């Protein structure tokens, strides 16, 4: 274990903002656009993804010594598909309406690039504790990204947040926000905003130095 590998705490903090999976790495776009029409499905999707990411990272990290290089993607995929099936069945059993609302996007967690890339970059190379921290950090970052987009779309689109009305009843609801074009527009503009903040911070840092 070389000293230059990031520690558990570094991995954890890394995933939240500096390497946020949505805003910085631009991974996992499919669920980001699909389930962020309202907060409830967004939070459920974030939780399901977190479950799969943490479990997959744990298992891959435990067996990392046994992985043959050219079969490792196969192992990752098999592990991820199994946990996604478990998550999907659990949702259908205990949160049936939400499972119907999320529909095919829960199984699409299998091809969510975030999970495979974390297995490849971190879990297959570092110990269980670090892999766990990495998974938790990335999950938190993903949840923050989803929540930010869902907040904008739900408040503007339906006037509610988590189903509770937050805008005066005169607000009829900006329907396009809940529909596909609104998803693309919101994500694009929020990405621009995040980029602008990052560039401003970088400019100030270099300005000071």
């Amino acid at each position, binding site marked *: 274990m070389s000293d230059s590998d990031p520690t558990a705490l570094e991995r954890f903090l890394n995933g939240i903002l500096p390497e946020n999976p949505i805003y910085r790495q631009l991974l996992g776009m499919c669920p980001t656009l699909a389930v962020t029409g309202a907060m409830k499905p967004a939070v459920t999707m974030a939780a399901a993804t977190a479950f799969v990411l943490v479990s997959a990272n744990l298992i891959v990290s435990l067996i990392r010594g046994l992985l043959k290089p050219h079969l490792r993607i196969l192992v990752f995929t098999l592990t991820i598909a199994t946990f996604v099936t478990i998550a999907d069945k659990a949702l259908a059993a205990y949160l049936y309406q939400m499972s119907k609302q999320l529909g095919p996007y829960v199984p699409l967690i299998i*091809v969510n*690039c975030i999970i495979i890339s974390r297995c490849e970059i971190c879990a297959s190379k570092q110990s269980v504790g670090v892999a766990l921290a990495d998974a938790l950090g990335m999950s938190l970052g993903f949840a923050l990204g989803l929540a930010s987009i869902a907040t904008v779309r739900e408040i503007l689109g339906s006037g509610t947040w988590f189903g509770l009305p937050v805008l005066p009843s005169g607000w009829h609801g900006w329907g396009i926000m809940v529909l596909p074009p609104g998803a693309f527009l919101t994500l694009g503009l929020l990405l*621009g905003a995040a980029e602008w903040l990052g560039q401003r911070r970088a400019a100030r840092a270099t300005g000071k130095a």
Partner: protein
Amino acid sequence: METFVLLIQIFIAAALINNFVLHYFVGVCPFLGVSRRVDTAFGMGCAVTFVMTVASLLSWTFTYFILRPGAPLPAWVWSRISGRSDVVVDLSVLSYIMYIFVIAASVQFVEMYVRKFFPPLYKAFGVFLPLITTNCAILFACLLIMKNLQDPTALWGLGESLTMAVGGGLGFTLAITLMAGIREELAMCDVPKPLEGAGIALVVAGTLAMAFMGFTGVDKSVAEALAKALH
């Protein structure tokens, strides 16, 4: 004749109205990543269509004969083992694992085929071809097929599934090529710095999605017109 009209309806719905990228949000990663030039975008679209068709063919076959509730093959095996033939065997819990391997196998197959018969195209694709494995669109097509094979009173046949796959792939190709054409022009425009790259691409995609919303109801009207014309 009703089958033909139904197939046309499925095709138009998959390609235009419920466009895989602009309505269902699947395949957004290659849509953003490969859409800078029209020729690579079109090539990627064709490759995705090809893989989607092969993968849908394989996944329909596996789902129909093995995975769905009441599938014939496991029922036959179980009746040989236990002697009982009234049990409904449901292996659909293995669906997702089966699909992801079917997709990986389809990509391998297409890769071998393209490398053998179209070597310059294979070189042009580079790393994109294996990346199609993680393309949500293909898994999504398989999931649609699975959804329509659940109720024994309303099963999708091979024809409907393949039509949906080809329609979806062509819709993806249309969307990605349109996007590439727009981005080629955008490259010469004065885009605000924070929006360069993914930001402006997503805003453009939003406008495209709005445009495609105009197709709503077209499949029903075409189906009705066809039904009238053919009778």
